[in-house]
């Protein structure tokens, strides 16, 4: 015997994106129910770093959207009850050769033109930033609005906020089938019983394509594996997030002047000091299916790269490593979209490494789309159609 439960809006996925949708949705008065197959924040949202960055976003639409998200996170930090280790110190990118420095100058100009708070840094600035930096670094750039959070505490905090506004959160509830019945309601079969809903939001990150498939919708997201190593607190290496300029090249797919192994695993330095005073060192990028095993060779490359930028941390200790899956899309923009073919079905996934950065604006946008109000940023560049349109084009 099946027990039928009817809900207004069902969000599938209990990661950071589902958390932000649940929060902004229920705050606006929507009746929200979340289904998470494991625990809250047990996928990518706890296998990542906690940077809320504009510094690495494509200048223009993407960086402006990131800036909007940063403003929302800044509000959330006073709005939500549970603290999530929010620190807004800005972030920096460092350059190791003239080619990068030139590209950095261009990047800063483009970002400034888009209205963001960027500036160049010289060698002196870097020396003042951290005495652990390699002496040969030429300079870098700074984005003032960037901030850091603890990603899983941020997820928990948003869900607690959502609950306070009446959201229902079901963990260990896996969606096994999804279809529309004759009454045009969604039927959601889970391992905890069957539900019906008026609207469904797919916030499943790298797993979003599986939910899409249940409705015959192709969602072009692929898992892009990343690894992070955790270094034990010894001495403060820096207080804000640092990345090498090559990170942008690795992310957007350009050519770098680095060792073949560094290139092969897409290794680029990211250093994030955490509130516990440990620091996280990343990063890597690999298309390797859905496996999340820590790869020793990649871990070595990440450590090797860290010492290139911070020679004086050579004797500091690595205590832990973990790997996660970024939901990659071909144009590095998330899919935050209604699905035209299936009214009432929404997708909020495909943020690659920007899920924590863009969660707040994503939650807000889905809330605005469901409530049919004006959206905080234009949503056309985020639509699912953009992939299918370009596909049609390529056949012309």
């Amino acid at each position, binding site marked *: 015997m099946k027990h039928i439960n009817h809900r207004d809006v069902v969000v599938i996925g209990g990661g950071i994106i589902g958390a932000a949708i649940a929060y902004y949705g229920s705050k606006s008065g929507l009746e929200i129910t979340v289904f998470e197959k494991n625990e809250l924040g047990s996928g990518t949202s706890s296998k990542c770093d906690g940077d809320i960055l504009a510094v690495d976003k494509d200048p223009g639409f993407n960086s402006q959207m990131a800036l909007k998200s940063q403003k929302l996170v800044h509000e959330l930090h006073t709005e939500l009850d549970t603290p999530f280790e929010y620190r807004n110190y800005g972030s920096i990118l460092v350059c190791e050769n003239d080619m990068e420095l030139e590209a950095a100058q261009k990047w800063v100009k483009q970002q400034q033109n888009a209205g963001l708070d960027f500036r160049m840094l010289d060698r002196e600035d870097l020396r003042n930033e951290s005495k652990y930096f390699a002496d040969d670094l030429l300079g870098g750039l700074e984005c003032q609005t960037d901030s850091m959070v603890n990603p899983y505490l941020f997820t*928990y905090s948003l869900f607690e906020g959502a609950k306070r506004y009446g959201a229902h959160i079901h963990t260990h509830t896996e969606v096994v089938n999804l279809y529309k019945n004759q009454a045009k309601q969604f039927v959601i079969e889970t391992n905890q019983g069957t539900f019906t809903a008026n609207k469904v939001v797919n916030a499943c990150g790298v797993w979003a394509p599986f939910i899409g498939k249940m409705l015959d919708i192709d969602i072009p997201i692929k898992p892009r594996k990343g690894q992070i190593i955790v270094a034990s607190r010894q001495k403060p290496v820096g207080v804000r997030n640092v990345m090498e300029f090559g990170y942008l090249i690795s992310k957007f797919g350009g050519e770098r002047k680095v060792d073949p192994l560094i290139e092969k695993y897409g290794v680029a330095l990211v250093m994030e000091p955490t509130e*516990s005073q440990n620091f996280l060192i990343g990063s890597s990028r690999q298309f390797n299916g859905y496996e999340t095993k820590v790869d020793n060779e990649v871990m*070595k490359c990440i450590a090797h790269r860290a010492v290139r930028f911070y020679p004086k941390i050579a004797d500091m200790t690595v205590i832990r490593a973990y790997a996660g899956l970024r939901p990659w899309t071909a144009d590095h923009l998330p899919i935050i979209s209604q699905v035209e073919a299936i009214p009432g079905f929404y997708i909020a996934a495909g943020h690659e490494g920007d899920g924590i950065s863009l969660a707040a604006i994503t939650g807000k946008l889905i809330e605005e789309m469901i409530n049919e109000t004006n959206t905080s940023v234009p949503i056309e560049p985020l639509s699912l159609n953009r992939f299918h349109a370009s596909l049609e084009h390529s056949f012309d």
Partner: protein
Amino acid sequence: MNENVMIICRCEEVTYHELVSTATKYKCSARELKLRTRAGMGYCGGRTCRTMVEKIAQSMGTNTPTETNISLKVQPPIRPVSFENLGRISK
């Protein structure tokens, strides 16, 4: 000895009281209890306190093992290792 001030996680200095009150407040799994308190996330990688953290979550009735609820995991490296030793790439 007052069990409230008894340290369970020596690396991150998490007390018995902190673990019990967090487990009671959030009725959470061992994993969430670890993430919220940092017990087991320090230098020793949970070698000292992992079973106690699991036990506390279980005693609150919030960590009943199910198919989707496995016990706390162990992450590499096996022992803490310096950047220098880890980052040595053989050519």
